[in-house]
């Protein structure tokens, strides 16, 4: 029994909570031993953010994205970014229809619910910009005509940290469009053994083992709206601003969190609380999402930003446990 069940008995969100738990279970079945990563991916989805996964090939990025698309009942598209990839290869393009004597818009892969942009740092900055516009504004503009994307549009971009040759690193302004940066990492020994066991006798056809749709698109939108409504106490807001100031004043941080970054951080904290079946944010929610949220947008003077992030989190006292007054 968790706290919310006690304090919010009879909530109308119980179905949504159950559906989220089902999605979580389905993804955990696909990506074994990576519960935390699955949770972060779901947080990103619920917070209407986009996800950047920085990891080596073959760790399950595509599988995760495909399974997620299947779970939320949406379309899945994949773009393998290369230096010769054009913006129109992602967004779509106008083609002249000789029958109608008119230009027709041919949708690109962004017109889906879940898009996997593999090795995004191999695309040219121009192509990256086109994708990032679609991520930020959830629309595509072509020849002064705007084409809205799906409301649940969710991008999982990947980049390989090992190979830097011939890549175009994402600038900080564009990194800020991502809600989180994750690293899946290798599975544990037992999970890997179980994975091998599960693959025996199973078809290699992609998508064959994906979960059935667990969310109707409108249900996902409703859940996302519920996440927005999760309460954030004034003490928590002050705490987050203190943390943001700490990132800006830290001598090891060249670029701190932007206001847009704090908004994203708050939204992800709300999503984390929702994932925990709560309708209010706690300091723990803020801290749980702090690392993936901050690691994508802080520019630090060290190879590993984690110790600096830990220092920042440890340096700011969490809000005191007092009964909130009526104004908060």
């Amino acid at each position, binding site marked *: 029994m968790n*706290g919310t069940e006690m*304090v919010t008995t009879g909530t109308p969100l119980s179905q949504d909570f159950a559906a989220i738990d089902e999605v979580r279970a389905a993804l955990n079945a696909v990506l074994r031993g990576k519960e935390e990563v699955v949770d972060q991916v779901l947080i990103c989805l619920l917070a209407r953010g986009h996800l950047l996964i920085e990891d080596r090939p073959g760790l399950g990025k595509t599988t995760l994205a495909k399974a997620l698309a299947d779970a939320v009942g949406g379309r899945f598209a994949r773009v393998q970014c290369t230096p010769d990839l054009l913006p129109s290869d992602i967004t779509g393009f106008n083609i002249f229809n000789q029958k109608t004597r008119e230009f027709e818009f041919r949708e690109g892969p962004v017109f889906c619910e879940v898009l996997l942009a593999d090795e995004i740092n191999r695309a040219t900055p121009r192509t990256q910009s086109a994708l990032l516009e679609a991520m930020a504004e959830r629309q595509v503009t072509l020849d002064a005509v705007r084409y809205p994307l799906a409301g649940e549009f969710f991008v999982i971009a990947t980049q390989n940290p090992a190979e830097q040759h011939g890549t175009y690193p994402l600038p900080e302004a564009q990194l800020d469009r991502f809600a989180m940066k994750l690293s899946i990492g290798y599975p544990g020994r037992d999970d890997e053994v179980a994975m091998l066991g599960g693959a025996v006798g199973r078809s290699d056809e992609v998508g064959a083992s994906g979960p059935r749709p667990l969310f109707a698109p409108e249900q996902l939108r409703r859940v996302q709206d519920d996440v927005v409504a999760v309460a954030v106490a004034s003490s928590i807001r002050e705490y987050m601003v203190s943390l943001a100031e700490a990132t800006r004043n830290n001598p090891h941080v060249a670029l701190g969190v932007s206001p847009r970054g704090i908004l994203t951080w708050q939204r992800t904290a709300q999503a984390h609380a929702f994932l925990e079946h709560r309708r209010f944010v706690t300091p723990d929610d803020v801290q749980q999402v702090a690392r993936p949220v901050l690691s994508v947008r802080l520019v630090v003077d060290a190879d590993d930003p984690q110790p600096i992030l830990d220092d920042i989190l440890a340096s700011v006292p*969490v809000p005191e446990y007092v009964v909130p007054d009526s104004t908060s």
Partner: protein
Amino acid sequence: MRAERAQLTNVRLSVVLAMLASLALELALHESGEGWLRIACVLAIQVILLAVGQRYVGRLAARGAPPAGTVSLAVAGLILLPLVYEACLRSFTGFGRPFEVLLICGLRDVTLGLAMMSYWPVYQRLCASLSLFVMLFSASISSHPGTFAAVVLFAIVGVWWLMGNHWDTLRARIHAESKQDLPTQWLLLSAGIVTLLLATVSVGENRVANALTGFMPSSGGTRWYDPSARGGVNDGDALVPGTEDAHSFGPIESEIFKESKESSLYDALDDTYGEPYFPKTLERAVSLPRELVLEIERRMSQTKQAGREFSTLRRRSARQRPVAGIDSQALFYVSGRTPLHLRMEVFDLFDGITWHPEPPPESYPELEMEEVAGKQWLRIRSRYSSPILYGNDSHALRVISLDSNRLPAPSHLLGVHIDKVDNRHFFKFEQEGILALNRKKIPPLTVIHLQSQLANLENRRELYVPRVGPGRYSSVPDDFHTREIARIAAQWVHEVPSGWDEVEMIVSRLHETCVHDRSATAPEGCIHPAAWFLLESRRGADYHFATTAALMLRSLGYQVRLASGFYADPRNYDLRSRQTPVGADDVHVWPEVKLHPGTWVSIEPTPGYELLGPPPGLLEQVVGVLAVLSESAYRHRVGIISLAVLGCLVMAFRVPLLDRLAICWWRLAPGGTPRQQVIRGLQLLELRCRWAGAARPPGMPATTWFRRLAHGDGADPLERLLQLADWAAFAPLSETSDVEYRVEVAASIRQSLTTWSLSRLRGALQRCGLVEERRSRPSHMLHATWQGFGRGIAWVRPARVFATRGGAAR
């Protein structure tokens, strides 16, 4: 934000502390009457400068770290400023201020400067420390009521500031891995000891305060000469301006004595010891040699003033004034080192009952006036030079109501100064070494400065104690009782070399074998009080001791006389006025032994009285202070040991005791609403966790902290309490609950507190590596003591909790 508000409050409090210290210093420096207006102007200027400076510094502080170089320069400038100002003042006006005042003014300026920069915590703490020093200095030199009010206010604000600062420190405890925390326990212990010492000085025995007097800031004191001195005793010239400035020396409440009845030495003797009487059947001086009997009769026929003799046969009358009443009235005040024997009369002939006063000397020592530092001093040049006399000791007496023209003075008087008395004919010798004014009595409120030499009794080779035949100072009555006393004296000194060792032996045996009882008198019908005292009662007043010692020493052939006068008791020392009041009940009788020609040395056979020793050096002063403190501690050993044992027990079992108290308090006041109950339960659990050895780092949510201790066990009742705590603190108020929920809250808290006992928490903390494993209690306490000692020396130590970087906080 709460933390910022708290920081701002601390800044303001430190400013208030600095201003209070400044106010106290101004009051202390100008309490002689320069007026409130000047003080108010100075303080107003300081406030304006502080306000303007703080606005500027506040903007600087918002940008980041303090400009260390500029601050150092500013501090140096503030220290030098009063010195530069003083140099200008002295060169233009010729007036100056004492050096310690310049230094403390510089320190005050630095304090105010640091208060200006108190936005940075390091300067804020420095400012508070210096404020405390300035305040202590001011309080120690001032008796102004405003200063004491400032001290009280300072204490209140200081405690407030300390609390705020403590919580700030807790908040930032995990801020940096390299941060080292203060040895709080040892600091508290040190503060406790200092407080205890101050309390002892303030409210303890006068003797303790007296012993510490030499360490109080002053100038013009012992062996220190400064024309700008503001106060002091001994050979400093501050005593001279003391005659002009009533504040610096003299009782303020002297008006009340004008109406009181003035006492002569004889009144005081009679009041203290009872009135003398003579047995009708006894023939006086029957056993003295014939020439001495004739001498006594001649003196009695020539004496102009009756009652000069001192009888050792006394009785207390019913109408006698109670001693307690006398105690409150000082005849005069003594400034300078004590204990001090101030003699006013000496006696040479003793007939078994009565001591007869010594006649005026046939030839007087030379008296001449000499100007020292613009003041006229009467110089007394002895005809004999003694190898044992050395040094120069100064005392000042303020006579309140003494009906005598004789000056109460110590032995070996060298000089006397009374303001406006510039002619040696104002003085005369009444007896050998007894100086008097050439008038009927000393006028009330006269300040008498006395300079005397000390006798060095350490070097035995120079202590020549002549033994002579019967004479004025060595004759004893020839009767059975006196012979018995002589026999005992000879028995006591049987194995002691002759000379000063015999004198010391007689004194020490009297100390050992007899008890001082001021109210003891010889019974009716007693014909030889000294024999009654030594052979029967072994309990008597100081004149019994003195007479017996004199008889014993005389029987051994030494020249001894009796001196009467007053004893300035160090136990009566008044720390605030820095004087020792001498009242009618301080009359005292003691013997003097003649060593060299013209050199009479006081001895003190009466237990409880001491002779003035040589002025102590710094090391001796420190040793003396420690000795007095340890003596005081020994006297109160039962209480101190009981307190120490109790303190050790409380210290050893403080954690379980505190835990029990907290639980009791929680049961009495569990909180009103369910949210309050939950929060209080969590606070209690956090408190228990701190007592178990490790507090939750301020940057870590309580849920994370306790889940880590519980190993994430969701079935633990603690988990429910943590969820409730999150709800109570961070859920909107609209998230309400019903009455049943209130019951669940109480049950959840109770279960958590029961399950997570102190020992379980300690075990969990040890398992997580947050506290060291507990050893067996004695070795653990020893280890902790050793660790604490090490921390006390090293001042800093690595942070105990979550010292590792990053990951530990998760």
